[in-house]
């Protein structure tokens, strides 16, 4: 399912005096089957960009192609519902959108809305809850009675129950505690590696990008600065410096050590570093 933006621009309030061009002339291809992180400062256009992916926003100009779907400014894509089954969008703080009496009902709402029978919707909901690590003891509980991290996972299950090929997550770890964050990273890695979902991740946390993403798209002032392999992106010191991007800590440490004259190669984690340095000592 290739995703291709061509000369895509979006203007908020186009006919008003305070019209703002949120993204402009986006040319971008997002790779199928990978975890792609979209990064950039607040206001760089990340949220605007991803809201095009299931046609919540229609471009002011340009084209977005997702497999057989073409989205342009002058027409709503044919089969909008089919598109939204292909692309699941998990909003920032999605747990605020839980509303049903029980967790199972809440997760089953999506598939029911897409026309699945009650029975099948429930079956899909159970499967999705299993994927996010909420077992059957959670089915009949109120979504209000579980922790923030669990709520967030229940909300994600609501999207997974529709079984989209592409899952877009806007700041999925914001506000989670360290354990919740680890579980979330494990979840989207598993969705990608085991179920071969294309994952698009919007995040401010470069530690998470470095740990989990295959590719990085950097946005600045509504434009794509670059799209690159995650490891090589964070090794390009000049690029990071010129765009004021904070290095992941392990990269910073490695850089400092190399500046001091230590020879280090292929260091991507604390464990890599320990092994490399431990080797030097033997």
């Amino acid at each position: 399912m290739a995703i291709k933006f061509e000369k895509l621009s979006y203007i908020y309030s186009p006919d008003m005096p305070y019209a703002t061009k949120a993204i402009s002339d986006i040319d971008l291809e997002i790779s199928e089957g990978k975890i792609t992180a979209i990064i950039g400062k607040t206001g760089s256009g990340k949220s605007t960009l991803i809201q095009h992916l299931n046609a919540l926003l229609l471009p002011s100009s340009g084209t977005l192609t997702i497999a057989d779907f073409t989205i342009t400014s002058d027409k709503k894509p044919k089969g909008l519902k089919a598109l939204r089954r292909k692309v699941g969008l998990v909003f920032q703080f999605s747990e605020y959108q839980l509303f049903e009496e029980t967790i199972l009902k809440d997760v089953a709402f999506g598939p029911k809305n897409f026309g699945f029978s009650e029975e099948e919707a429930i079956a899909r909901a159970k499967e999705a809850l299993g994927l996010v690590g909420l077992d059957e003891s959670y089915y009949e509980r109120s979504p209000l009675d579980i922790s923030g991290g669990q709520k967030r996972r229940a909300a994600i299950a609501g999207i997974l129950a529709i079984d989209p090929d592409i899952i877009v997550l806007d700041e999925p770890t914001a506000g989670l505690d360290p354990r919740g964050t680890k579980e979330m990273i494990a979840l989207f890695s598993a969705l990608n590696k085991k179920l071969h979902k294309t994952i698009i991740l919007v995040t401010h946390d470069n530690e998470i990008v470095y740990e989990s993403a295959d590719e990085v798209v950097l946005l600045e002032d509504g434009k794509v600065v670059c799209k690159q392999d995650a490891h090589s992106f964070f090794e390009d010191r000049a690029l990071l410096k010129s765009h004021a991007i904070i290095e992941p800590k392990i990269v910073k440490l490695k850089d400092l050590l190399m500046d001091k004259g230590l020879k280090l190669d292929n260091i991507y984690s604390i464990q890599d570093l320990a092994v490399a340095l431990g080797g030097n000592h033997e």
Partner: protein
Amino acid sequence: MVLYMGIMKNVVEVKDVYFAYEEDNDALKGVSFAVEKGTYTTILGHNGSGKSTIAKLISGLLVAKSGEILIDGEILNERSIESIRRKLGIVFQNPDNQFIASSVREDIAFGLENYCVDPEKMDAIIERYAALVDMKDKLEKEPTNLSGGQKQRVAIAGVLAMQPQIIIFDEATSMLDPKGKEEIKKTIHDLHSDRALTIISITHDIEEALNSDYVIVLNDGKLYKSGRPEDTFKDKEGIEAIGLDIPFTYKVAFALKEKGIMIRDVAKIEDLAEEIWRSSLKN
């Protein structure tokens, strides 16, 4: 918490506090701690550990089931709440729940107006605090035209403008981008540099905790431990077992120790690099 023979004054004292949102399910189960005047204290704990409940109790937004809270030596109760609120400001996590006026300027002015600040002096005060949080050029903007991070900076300016003795940050930076986070953390540190202001920061940011004076760790509504950050984070197993993390520099030191490389625990990555470099020269 360490007391220096009564020299340091406790500006917040929490004594055996219980609180329950619903019957038979205590969110806080007898929590006691003290915060010394002029310190930067961080409160850590997993989601649901009771951190935010503590913040709301201290600022009088919730009332404890039992136990006692003293602010600046005064017992917090219905009679003292008004005077105590003047001493204490709180910045919450979600910026959308805090923006009340229709422009940045008015939002910062809101509290000042309530406290009858001379309107002629008000603009200077507003501009000073707006500049501190880097929002001076956005004073006439409407909240709808601001990002979450910008709104949060306005909320912080609004609290700062009231010149409280104590400011509680309840995960106030968790929604900002990394640069925004660093700016706010620097702002808080700068504000705290003369030690006149007491900062209590509820956070998941381990690095922030490492750079604070004291850490209070809550787990399931109870005090897990409190003390200096360097002592707190030595307990890697315990801290990780309650769903928290230890700082990056400590993690590296632990991983190297397992490979037989002994280095000191340090807070800064620069110092860590220096430690590793020195140890590599010895071999």
